């Protein structure tokens, strides 16, 4: 439990750090830390496979690409523009309401009781593989098509049209 509380604090602090930081690179790094903390949560829950995947995919691949793009675009610190005059207090107020609501709901009723404790091998690579290729076969295959489409789309967008050459 103490481990969980410490980790939860780290997760919250890094998430806040990501939001508050004025430098895009620092934001990205805070996010990496946040992902890493979440990965440790998965470890605590007994799902090492998901934890490792989280680190590899999010921290290792996606955030590196984020950093890459941020660095290519330049990393000037954001100026403190105040275009959002009334939205910010409103958002904070609403967020507070949401948190209070969530805490109230969590304390007032424990309705998630019907979710049974998962079996030991729930997060094991074999179990995940079995699920992916039996019950979730269609979403799995559809995702591969989705990724193909996204890849084709990205390439289409980066190649300029030939219009310029003709004129």
């Amino acid at each position, binding site marked *: 439990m103490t481990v969980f509380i410490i980790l939860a604090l780290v997760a919250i602090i890094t998430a806040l750090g990501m939001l508050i930081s004025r430098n895009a690179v620092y934001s990205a*790094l805070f996010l990496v830390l946040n992902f890493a903390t979440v990965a440790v949560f998965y470890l605590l829950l007994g799902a090492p*496979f998901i934890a*490792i995947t989280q680190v590899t995919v999010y921290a290792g*691949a996606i955030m*590196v690409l984020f*950093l890459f793009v941020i*660095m*290519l675009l330049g990393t000037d610190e954001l100026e403190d523009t105040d275009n959002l005059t009334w939205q910010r207090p409103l958002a904070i107020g609403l967020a507070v309401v949401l948190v209070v609501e969530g805490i109230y709901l969590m304390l007032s009723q424990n309705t998630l009781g019907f979710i049974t404790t998962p079996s030991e091998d729930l997060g094991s*690579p074999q179990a995940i593989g079995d699920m992916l290729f039996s019950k979730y076969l269609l979403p799995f295959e559809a995702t591969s098509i989705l990724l193909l489409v996204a890849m084709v789309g990205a390439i289409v967008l980066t190649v300029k049209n030939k219009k310029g050459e003709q004129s």
Partner: protein
Amino acid sequence: MDSALIWEMVIKSLVLILALLTGFAYLTYYERRGLARIQSRVGPNRAGPAGLLQPIADAVKLIFKEEFTPGQAYKVIFILAPIITVIPAILITATVPWGGTVTIGGREVMLGIADINIGVLYIMSVASIAVYGVVLAGWASNNKYAMMGGLRSTAQMISYELALGLSFVGVILLANSMRMTEIVEAQRGLWFAFLQPVGAVVFFFATLAELNRGPFDMPEAEQELSAGYNVEYSGMKFALFFMAEYTKMVSISAIIATLFWGGYRGPFIDTMPGLGPLYMFIKIFFILFMMIWVRASWPRIRYDRLMDLGWKILLPLSLSLVFINATGILLNQMWLIPLLSIGAGFLAIQAINLSLRRKENAR
């Protein structure tokens, strides 16, 4: 968890870290001597007998050197970057088994830190984290050359991670497990390097690129980037980058040995499990020699060709190797695997040849 187990873990980790750090120090000596021999020079031979104290002299020099931090650098990250680079290099060895189980003082001790069921994935994920040190060093220096080096290394490492990951998949298929000890045990009959020779070669190249070693050492190309991501670093911080690179060389050699060259297995290992670390040492020694040899003999690859090789040759090749492995296992005809994979390897070489020729014709 009893305290004895914790002590066992701590001691094992300490031994491993110390071994890696000494290994790093002496690897520099090994490399300099090796390079010198290949280039008909003598190499360092003054400090101590046959120059054996040279690494210690180097360390003393680096520690006492002036440290300089550029005024415009992002200080926190600038200091953190070398540390972030070193840590994964050491962490990555945690799942590598150095031998079977031996009995020391009536206690069964597994030679290796952690034998988790997803050991291979762990290596993959730590390897993917390793990019950060380099890229952050490049950015935090606030220097164009350093930045270019950092960006190059990011692109390169991400590109080669794909081939690396797919080679891992091939091994996982062959061993039917992601646990490192089971992978080693699966090579009881035949090392995977013989069963899947092309996979071993692809893996070797991909790791060279991950290590930013020659001929893939674009991030620190002296002529173009005046050293790349570490140009602003000096003193001990520079030494940390150096340390990370060489520690990683040792760690990765250990992984290559485990995945493809039978790991700690060798003659009489079943009767004398204590021999495991020795066999590992011999294998790592040879693999390191291969790396040094490659660096000495091959010029640096041009950046676009490096990317072409990664994306257009190694990625499809390693993907096809996964298919070949799966086919062999499915049909239960293991002899198909080396045969088909060598065929695929020849096709890949042909493709490189063709693309080079096309470029020449286009000129």
